[in-house]
């Protein structure tokens, strides 16, 4: 006997633990099956792009922390790189290495947190999440040593970084690098064989390579859909051409592939940090910031610079009219664009898989809403 059911409209969010911030979805349900998803955002909109128009180029750097607050260092880097390209500023080599080390450590933090949240949203209470949080805490301690704060770093400056690495940074980071693989293996033992995670993640939230490209997705979500694209290799910025690393791709573009791509990228970033630390030993100590005037006036023009942030291609578009403040500042935030594909990934799945799919995209509402 066929049951007669009505469609039910359900609001998930904006204040819901599984929405990773203040994100709201209006979901139309047929029983347990998702028929329509309508993402709504803007609850964390602060108008950073408009606010930046009245501020000098240096004063915008704290705002880039608040874009993607899980990986603030990468936001700093993308913005500083854009202004340096616009103004033609040369960054000292030592500063390039420091930027590389802190940013790749940040990518490890971001991916570990993303996987932790994803597993939590699958229903594994907090154990895997807290194991990842412990590793993050060690790195966050190092960032505090470096720049004074644990979360919103404001560490990079136009033309370099604000401080040199303190002397006690090297023993601490070396100890972290020695211990990390064994702890990382612990996560893998904990999660990879788990049948519940496999049953929940394999084959859910599938997106094809063609769809992913059409949605302009980037980062681990795109690579999980078997598109071999990484800005660090394909359009190398800074000094990425000096490092060896693999670009990890998935096969099917499902939640499992996105989880695996992130976990393997952590180890690739680990390799990059190790190479950078070795190469930094040969760089003589010197200035870590180029000579840049306090009130920088870049020449009239516009620039778009994109970096491979942990969540995808983070681009900064700056229009300068020759004054001390940008005429227009636009951020291409990767998670906003990846979020567009949520509807196609989720329609036809169950509501529990919708939550898992949202977590596997790895959004940060700070950069979705800006």
């Amino acid at each position, binding site marked *: 006997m066929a049951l007669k059911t009505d469609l039910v409209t359900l609001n998930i969010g904006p204040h819901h633990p599984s929405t990773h911030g203040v994100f709201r979805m209006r979901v139309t349900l047929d029983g347990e099956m998702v028929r329509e998803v309508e993402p709504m955002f803007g609850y964390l909109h602060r108008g950073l792009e408009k606010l930046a128009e009245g501020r000098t180029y240096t*004063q915008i750097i704290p705002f880039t922390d608040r874009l993607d607050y899980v990986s603030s260092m990468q936001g700093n880097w993308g913005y500083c790189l854009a202004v340096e390209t616009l103004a033609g500023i040369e960054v000292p080599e030592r500063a390039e290495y420091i930027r590389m080390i802190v940013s790749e450590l940040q990518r490890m933090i971001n991916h570990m947190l993303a996987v932790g949240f994803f597993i939590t949203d699958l229903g594994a209470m907090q154990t895997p999440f807290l194991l990842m949080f412990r590793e993050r805490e060690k790195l966050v301690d190092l960032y*505090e040593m470096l720049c004074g704060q644990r979360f919103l770093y404001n560490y990079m400056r136009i033309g370099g970084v604000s401080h040199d690495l*303190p002397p006690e940074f090297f023993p601490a980071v070396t100890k972290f690098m020695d211990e990390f693989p064994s702890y990382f293996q612990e996560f893998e033992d904990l999660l990879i064989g788990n049948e519940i995670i496999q049953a929940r993640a394999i084959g859910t939230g599938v997106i094809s390579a063609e769809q992913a490209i059409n949605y302009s997705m980037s980062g681990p979500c795109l690579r999980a859909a078997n598109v071999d694209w990484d800005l660090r290799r394909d359009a190398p910025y800074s000094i990425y051409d000096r490092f060896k690393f693999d670009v990890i791709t998935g096969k099917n573009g499902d939640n499992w592939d996105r989880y695996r791509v992130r976990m393997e990228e952590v180890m690739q970033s680990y390799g990059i940090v190790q190479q950078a630390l070795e190469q930094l030993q040969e760089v003589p100590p010197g200035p870590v910031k180029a000579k840049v005037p*306090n009130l920088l006036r870049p020449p009239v023009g516009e620039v778009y610079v994109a970096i491979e942030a942990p969540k995808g291609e983070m681009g900064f578009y700056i229009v300068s009219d020759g004054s001390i403040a940008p005429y227009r500042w636009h951020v291409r935030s990767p998670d906003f664009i990846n979020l567009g594909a949520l509807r196609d990934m989720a329609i036809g799945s169950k509501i529990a898989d919708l939550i898992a799919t949202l977590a596997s995209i790895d959004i940060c509402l700070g950069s979705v809403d800006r």
Partner: protein
Amino acid sequence: MSLKPVGIGLMQGLFVVFKHATRKRITEQYPEERLTVSRRTRAQELVWDPGLCTGCATCVKACPQGNLKVTTSVGPNNNYIVEKFENDEGRCIFCGLCVEACPYEALFFGRRYERSQYSRGELIADKDEMSGDDKERSAYFRPDLYDDLPEQTLLIYRKHKKII
């Protein structure tokens, strides 16, 4: 991927959990036990040195929030006398650009982080509050102070402790 007999992966995971169940704690019991913050900490207050400040207001120009308020008058030797120096710590984002900008090194970060108040008005720090003698100064952009400050506690060196 072919599924193994159901249960083996789960047991492997539980084994990792049980390894942690017997170890000692590495966290601190906050109000009783305290960690030392970083030497370059950007904690939740600014410290102002009235002897060094000339009232040039470079910090005001550097602040992205427009948060610092400085009022000066002209003194007898044609110098500035600072009449008002205020920071609204409820609106401050603690980015540190004012400390970085100060040409006379008269502005510092403090090392205190317990700054809750009952109303926003109490968070506005005025001249006397910012220049108090009991203030510890952070070495953020003040490298001279770096070596005198206590070493930061790092989780990576933390020894496991007995569970109380």
